[in-house]
């Protein structure tokens, strides 16, 4: 028997997380329960299989990339801190009024960085043509021909690549998205 529901006291370093991520105590409580629900073998850490078990995510064309975003290079499991830090990127920008610096996870800059890193898998600071093609391949699968993929990639690079180095840097990426309301597109409404 015994209760297996965690209370806020069970959330490790809750104050630190509140400061760092801008989530409230009750947000963290719910996310902690969600974390436990996903943690199938109850190790206190999530592995790739735990993420892959979510059917809606498995059906997302770039699901594997999104999963990869949670794992630090070299590590093969995610603890609750890492989990929450990634989710913090999706908080509305205006929510965290305590710390207005660029350090905040849900600043427009950090959101764009997150999106950039989904493209830039080798983390070299540039989205190469090959990397762009890879993303397009994942998004479209067999629905379009190779030629169409090439032409889409060609067009995208031509439009965004301002310094003509055949790759898109983070600055060019930001410029390309300057008309997009990043806050609205990358926002999840966490209920309190």
């Amino acid at each position, binding site marked *: *028997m015994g209760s297996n529901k965690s*209370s806020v006291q069970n959330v490790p370093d809750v104050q630190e997380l509140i400061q760092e991520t801008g989530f409230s105590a009750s947000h963290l409580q719910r996310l902690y329960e969600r974390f436990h629900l996903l943690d199938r073998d109850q190790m206190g850490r999530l592995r790739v299989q735990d993420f892959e078990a979510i*059917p809606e995510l*498995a059906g*997302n064309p*770039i*699901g594997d990339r999104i999963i990869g975003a949670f794992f630090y290079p070299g590590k093969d499991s995610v603890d609750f801190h890492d989990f929450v830090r990634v*989710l913090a990127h999706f908080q509305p920008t205006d929510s965290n009024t305590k710390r207005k610096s660029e350090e905040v996870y849900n600043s427009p800059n950090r959101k764009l960085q997150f999106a950039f890193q989904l493209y830039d898998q080798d983390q070299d600071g540039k989205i190469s043509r090959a990397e762009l093609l890879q993303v397009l391949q994942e998004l479209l*699968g067999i629905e379009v021909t190779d030629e169409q993929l090439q032409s889409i990639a060609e*067009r995208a690079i031509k439009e965004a690549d301002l310094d003509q180095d055949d790759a898109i840097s983070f600055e060019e990426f930001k410029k390309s998205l300057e008309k997009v309301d990043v806050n609205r597109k990358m926002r999840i409404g966490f209920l309190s």
Partner: protein
Amino acid sequence: MTWSVFFTDSLLCRCVGITVTLWWTLLIFIIVPAVLGVSFGIRSFYMRALLKIFKWATLRMEIGAKEKNEELYKPYSNGIIAKEPTVSLQQEMQALRGFASSEFELADILCFSRRGVESIVDDEVTKCFSAQELQSWNLLTRSNYNFRHISLRLTVVWGLGVLLRYGVMLPLRVALATTGIILLIVLSTLVGCLPEVQLRSKLSEEVHLMCYRIFVRALTAIITYHNQENKPRNGGICVANHTTPIDVIILANDGCYSLVGQVHGGLMGLLQKAMVKASSHIWFERSEAKDRHLVAKRLSDHVADKNKQPILIFPEGTCVNNTSVMMFKKGSFQVGCTVYPVAIKYDPHFGDAFWNSSKFGIVTYLLRMMSSWAIVCSVWYLPPMNREERESAAEFANRVKSAIASQGGLVDLVWDGGLKRAKVKEDFKKEQQKLYSEVLVGDQDMGDQYRKQLLEET
């Protein structure tokens, strides 16, 4: 010395004697009405009293929390995030770029990443396989999140509750259940020995109903049956949503069904063998269960015989937590007979009936059930449905599923219950890719449909 020993001995004897007599009286008090099918209304009174106590308990916790100037943690059964009304991928993309452009944008990835992370935080399927959360506390430790706010008075009440449930109710219920099982095995075997068919079927029905009534009391199940005029008849298949193995007891209490299942060993196997002597049930060997044609044949043979009872099947194939209904497997809908849908909805305040098979084994689960306050549920018999001319079995299954979901107030999901253990198929990802490609390659509105047709023809 001997005098004091003698005294305690006789005191002990007397105590034991009283307890046993009490026990037997209670047992008879409950079994005889069960056999006769009579009810004294004790259970509904018990239920109302409990509800009043739960309200009081939650109120005390709120007061306790207010005193400490804290918020009471209220679990949201609606989820962790506010989801926008289901916007399809296409609509979202079009909103992102305006109807003019249909070219790939670097910003498109924002949309996919948001959807992905949303499903990590809250998805429809994973939460179907964990117990529902309650808004008010029902004095069971297993469903309390606000331990810190329990005052002394509340703790005492809770303690009394524990004593009552584990000290009195649990042993009583276990005794009842054991009696029921023994009676079922013995009487079924005896009835099966009768040569005359008419008498045998009549008696087996009586035995069946009697034993299941005992089981219902063993669980303190308070069931409300609605629309009994639609009860399943011979030559049909009864389908219901599946939350727990107890569903069988809930339904069999009100009518005789032929059960379908795999052959088990041990006590379960003994029960199966005894039951099949008195009336026809469909038990499969493990190897046979995989053979779809064999299964279908046995089902159709059974429904063809109008003397045989309706078959009871749970098409979801797995236990779901009673907030939603998952995909119905089309096997039972291919047989071609009348389908009698039944919706079962449990009230979680008195005890959560959902069997989370990855967390508890069946024995632990039954013990938990028998140490809860009660199992309260509603059963709705829906009007019989038949497959229509142009309908495929899968479409028919979906139609029945929607009817059951809307009657029971459950969410109607398209996901397969098998996702509890297996991974989702590649098809779903391909579908998403297709939708996205249509946004990029296709034209808007009218041109779109025409385009799709062209693409399909080539």
